[in-house]
């Protein structure tokens, strides 16, 4: 039984199908990558899974429970955490306060919160205002906040965007550590380097449809995938 099952998921906006009959499984413990050219529907997929959009048809099943169409807060309570493409935080609060509130709701202990702060590498910025953080630090905060609610599944939406290569590497380490601690991860990315480095499996979307699935090396040799990207393949 997969941790997350997406069956026949479709979502359209007006006349345009952003997702069409998408099927995928997320296996417990893996790091799954979702790639595809711009507009392929990757973020829409995330939004459907995490409750920000209601799919027009299909199902999302998490730990054998149908969560299709549930509101975002409910899905967060059930154990799926996500990050936002544009990092969001409680700007007027400190890093610690940002996390404390998340912990408060979930019941996570202060010790665990401090551990998480260490895990993501934000000890030095614990008492700084969220509004004063650099982009990389904001992303660490997003990860920390997602962890504080003790998710089983973590959805990362283009978390590498805007980072320099060495920053991206640092964040990747954090992600690997998170995965080792028992959190299944689905990561949407543009950057192939990232995908190659961390993902066990990769799914490729194009125009809302799944066109390939498998290990990163296999998928990248797939003709359909190469055609879809037409040269964007090695953008890193």
């Amino acid at each position, binding site marked *: 039984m997969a941790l997350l099952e997406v069956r026949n998921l479709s979502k359209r906006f007006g006349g345009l199908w952003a997702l069409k009959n998408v099927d995928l499984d997320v296996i417990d413990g893996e790091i799954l990558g979702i790639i595809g050219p711009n507009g392929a529907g990757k973020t829409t997929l995330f939004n459907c899974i*995490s409750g920000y959009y209601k799919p027009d048809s299909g199902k999302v099943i998490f730990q054998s429970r149908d969560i299709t169409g549930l*509101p*975002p*807060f*409910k899905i*967060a*309570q059930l154990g799926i*955490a*996500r990050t*936002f493409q544009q990092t*969001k*935080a*409680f*700007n*007027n*609060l*400190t890093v610690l*306060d940002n996390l*404390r*509130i*998340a912990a*408060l*709701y*979930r019941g996570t202990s202060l010790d665990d919160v401090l551990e998480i702060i260490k895990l993501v590498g934000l000890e030095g910025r614990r008492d700084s*205002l969220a509004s004063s953080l650099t982009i990389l630090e904001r992303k660490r905060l997003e990860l920390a*906040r*997602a962890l*504080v*609610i003790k998710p089983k599944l973590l959805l990362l939406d283009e978390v590498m965007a805007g980072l320099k290569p060495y920053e991206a590497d640092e964040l990747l380490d954090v992600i690997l550590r998170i995965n080792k601690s028992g959190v299944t991860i689905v990561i949407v990315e543009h950057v192939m380097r990232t995908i190659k480095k961390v993902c066990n499996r990769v799914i490729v979307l194009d125009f809302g449809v799944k066109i390939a699935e498998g290990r990163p090396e296999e998928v990248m040799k797939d003709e359909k995938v190469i055609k879809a990207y037409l040269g964007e393949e090695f953008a890193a």
Partner: protein
Amino acid sequence: MRSLRLNRIIPISVMLLTAYLIPVIQLPPYIMHVFILVIMWAYLSTAWNILGGTAGQLSLGHAAFFGIGAYTTYFLTVWFGLPPLMNLLISGLTASLLSVVIGYPCFRYGLRGVYFTLATIAFAEIMKDLFIYLRDLTGGSLGVWMPVLPEGITTLYFFGKEAYYYVMTTLYVVLVVIIGVMGRFREYLLAIREDEDVSASIGINVTRYKLLALMISSFFVGVGGAYYICYFRYINPYTAFGLDTSLQMALISIFGGMYSFWGPLIGSIILTPIGEYLRITLGGTYVGSHLLIYGLLLILIIRFLPKGIYSLLEPIYGRYLVRGG
């Protein structure tokens, strides 16, 4: 969470003691009246601030709940002979229920920002127009008078101002205590104020908490309205539901500091006496000058000190609610 510590208990106890001892000094009735007004507006503004400052939902229609509280007490006292003391509670509950009528649709459909504010303004106007229209029931634009009752705590009718002062102060203390023990709840409201999407992503049911904040806020404002009519003995739809009343609750909170717990109190301590003074001195020739000054002060505060007067005091006295900045 940050619960009461020794360095907090002392100043609060001192404040409490001072507040209750004030009437011991034989002050002229008009000064007592000003004290009552200060506490009353501090109370109303603090209640407003639960939704406005803490949860970040700016309502400019809270007069709807104030007015409902006042009129409910009137109806219960005059039509059913129920004791005003009990009516305070029922008025609060009525106001709270009423708030669901506007609150649930607003929050459920994600009405935010200026749209929410507009809806609250329209809501208060609806109440005002309804109460003017149903003149056989409500006395229309002429208003209603509370009857003379035997003096006593159950009837909330006293000859002297001191008793009214004690009642109002006690109501305020009750409000403060209740807000104080809702520490967790306040943190969630803070989160919602800062970012609703992030709040949802950490599991907070934003709609439910906003609604709860509104219901609690309107309950206390309703009780405030009930007290108002017991003290002033008269109300009409313009005072009850008017924009001036709503604006004053918001204004005092913002001036004092809407992101802090004591902000509304500070705001009332400064603004209410100024308002009264202006009303006595200039009010005869220049009606409304106190409101003019309030308006100007608010504009200045928003421009130069958006976190209110409290932000000036914060470095000295430490913070209770304000996090960062």
